[in-house]
C-alpha cells in the first residue's frame, strides 16, 4: 500500500496573530512557521501504518511557496520516504489545492491520502472532502482512530454528538483529528538523513491547474477586544457579582 500525506506550512500555533495595519492580511514576516498541527498527526499515522508492515511507501506533499520545502523536509525527518513540493505563490484556496492534489494522486496512484482535518490559518476545513469529491473516493473526516483492514478502513470519527464509526473502501481520503495519535519528534540522525531524501519540485502550471482565487479577501480586521474584567477576592463576591451586577444567575 502507498500513502500520500498532504502537509501545510502555517504560522506556528503558539504565535500571537497580528493583523496588518492596512487590513490586507496578517503579519507573516519574521513569524515562526510550522507544520499545521493535525497534518503532523496525518504523517504520524501513515508512518505507523508503514511500520506495521501494511504500507510500503509514504510520500509527503505540500502546496505552497518555496519555503514549504521545510515542511516537507520535516515530514521526511519523521519517516516519510520522499517528498513533493508544488510551488504556488500567494493565496491558494482549498479548491485549487484539491485540484493540485488530484493531479498528484493520478500520477502517484496512492491507496490512501491522509491530511489534517483543518488548517489552523484559514480554518476552512475543506481540502480533504473536496479531493474525495474530485476523485470520487470515500471520505472519512475528523478521524480519531483508523483500523486498516484488507480492502477497507474502519474509521472512528469525532462528531458533535460523540463518536461515529464508518467503513470506507480503499482508495480513500482520511482527514485526521488531533487525538488520532501522538506525533513523534524528529531525532537528529533522522533530520540529517532526511536531507538526503528526494523532494520533487513541481509548479501548479506544470500540472495545468488554475490557482486564481475565486474569493476576494476585501479586508482583514482584528476581532473586537473584550473589556478588561476584574479580579474578585472571594467566592462570595463572585456569586454576588454574578447575581446583582451581571445578572446572569
Amino acid at each position, binding site marked *: 500500500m502507498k500513502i500520500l500525506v498532504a502537509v501545510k506550512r502555517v*504560522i506556528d500555533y503558539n504565535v500571537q496573530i497580528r493583523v496588518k495595519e492596512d487590513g490586507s492580511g496578517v503579519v507573516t514576516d519574521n513569524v515562526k512557521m510550522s507544520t499545521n498541527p493535525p497534518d503532523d498527526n496525518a504523517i504520524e499515522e501513515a508512518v505507523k501504518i508503514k511500520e506495521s508492515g501494511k504500507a510500503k511507501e509514504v510520500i509527503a506533499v505540500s502546496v505552497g511557496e518555496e519555503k514549504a520545502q521545510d515542511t516537507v523536509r520535516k515530514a521526511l525527518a519523521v519517516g516519510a520516504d520522499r517528498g513533493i513540493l508544488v510551488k504556488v505563490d500567494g493565496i491558494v484556496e482549498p*479548491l485549487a489545492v484539491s485540484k493540485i492534489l488530484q493531479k498528484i494522486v493520478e500520477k502517484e496512484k496512492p491507496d490512501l491520502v491522509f491530511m489534517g482535518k483543518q488548517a489552523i490559518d484559514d*480554518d476552512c476545513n475543506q481540502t480533504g472532502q473536496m479531493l474525495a469529491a474530485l476523485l470520487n473516493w470515500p471520505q472519512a473526516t475528523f478521524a*480519531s482512530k483508523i483500523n486498516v483492514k484488507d480492502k477497507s478502513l474502519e474509521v472512528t470519527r469525532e462528531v458533535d454528538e460523540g463518536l461515529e464509526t464508518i467503513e470506507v473502501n480503499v482508495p480513500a481520503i482520511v482527514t485526521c483529528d488531533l487525538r488520532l495519535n501522538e506525533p513523534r519528534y524528529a531525532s537528529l540522525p533522522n533530520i540529517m538523513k532526511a536531507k538526503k531524501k528526494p523532494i520533487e519540485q513541481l509548479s501548479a502550471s506544470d500540472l495545468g491547474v488554475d490557482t486564481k482565487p475565486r474569493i476576494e479577501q476585501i479586508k482583514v480586521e482584528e476581532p473586537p477586544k*473584550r473589556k478588561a474584567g476584574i479580579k474578585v477576592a472571594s467566592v462570595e463576591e463572585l456569586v454576588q457579582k454574578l447575581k446583582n451586577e451581571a445578572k*446572569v444567575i
Partner: protein
Amino acid sequence: MSVLLIAEHNNKELKPFTLNAISAASKVNEEVHVLVLGSNSDSVAKAVSEIPNVKKVIHINNPLYENYLAENYTSVIIRLSKDYSHIMCSANTFGKNLMPRVAALLDISQVSDITKVISEDTFLRPIYAGNAFATVKSSDKIKCVTIRPTSFDPAPTSGGAAEILNGEVGDSSDLSKFIKKEEIKSDRPELGTARVVISGGRGMQSGENFKLITAVADKLNAAIGASRAAVDAGYITNDHQVGQTGKVVVPDLYIAVGISGAIQHLAGMKESKVIVAINKDGEAPIFSVADYGLEADLFDALPKFLEELNKLNTIQK
C-alpha cells in the same frame, strides 16, 4: 435568487443548529428552501414546514439517508443546485463534512463558517482561531456557504405552513458504510445552545474530579464543557471540547475552571456574554478575557461556589 439549505436531523427531530442556519439563510434571501434527506423522517419535514422563514420543503425519504453519509447526500444536492443561487448549511461536523464535497463537484470555492451576512455575495468569517476576521466576496455563480450557528439567532419554530414537495432519490454510493454511533445521552442542555456553560481543564486533574463541575452544572442547569487538554487526558469525552477544533459556544455565562486559556480554547468561548475564570495561577491567560476572575484553588472554590449558590433564593434557569 433563492437559497437551498440542508437540514440536519436524526429522522425524528430537527437539530437545533438548523434553526440558526435558516435565520442566516433568510438574511441572504427570503426565498429559503430546505432539503430534508432522511428515512422515515416525516415528522422532520413537518416541523421544518412550520418554520415561518421557510418557503418550501423538499423532502426525500429513503433508507439510503437513514445515516448521514456525505457520499449519498451529494448527488441529490448537485441535481437541485441549478435552481439556486446559494447552498448553505451549518458549520458543525455535519456541514463541515458535507459542503466541500458538494462545492468541489460544482467547481465552487466554498466560504466556510460565516459569522455575518454582509450582502448576497459578501460575508464575514473568522480566521486564525478568531484572532482575525476576514470580509470575503465570492465570485462563483452559486455560493456554497457554511454558517457558524452561534452567530445567528434561531428561527422561530411555528407559524409557517410551507409546501412539502417529495423529491427524487439520488444515486446510491457503496464507497462508505455506516457502522455505529456512540452518542452520549444527557438530560443537560446541549453545549452549543446552553444559557450557561461550565468547563473544566487540565487543572481538574482527573475525570473523577469532574463531579465538582457536574454538581455546579446541575444547580445552574448548565452544559458541561472541557478544554482539549482535559479531553486528551481522558477526563471527559470529545463531544465536550470547546475551542478552535471543537465546539464554539456563546452562552450568557461561561465558567472556566482550571483552564489556562490557550488561544485555541479562547477561540471557542470568548464571544460569551459573561466569562468567569477560576484558576490558581494568577498569570493564566484566561484572566485576560474574564469579566470576573477568581485566583483560587478550584478544589476549595468549587464546593464553596455550590454552597453560595444554594444560599440564593432563586436561580435563573
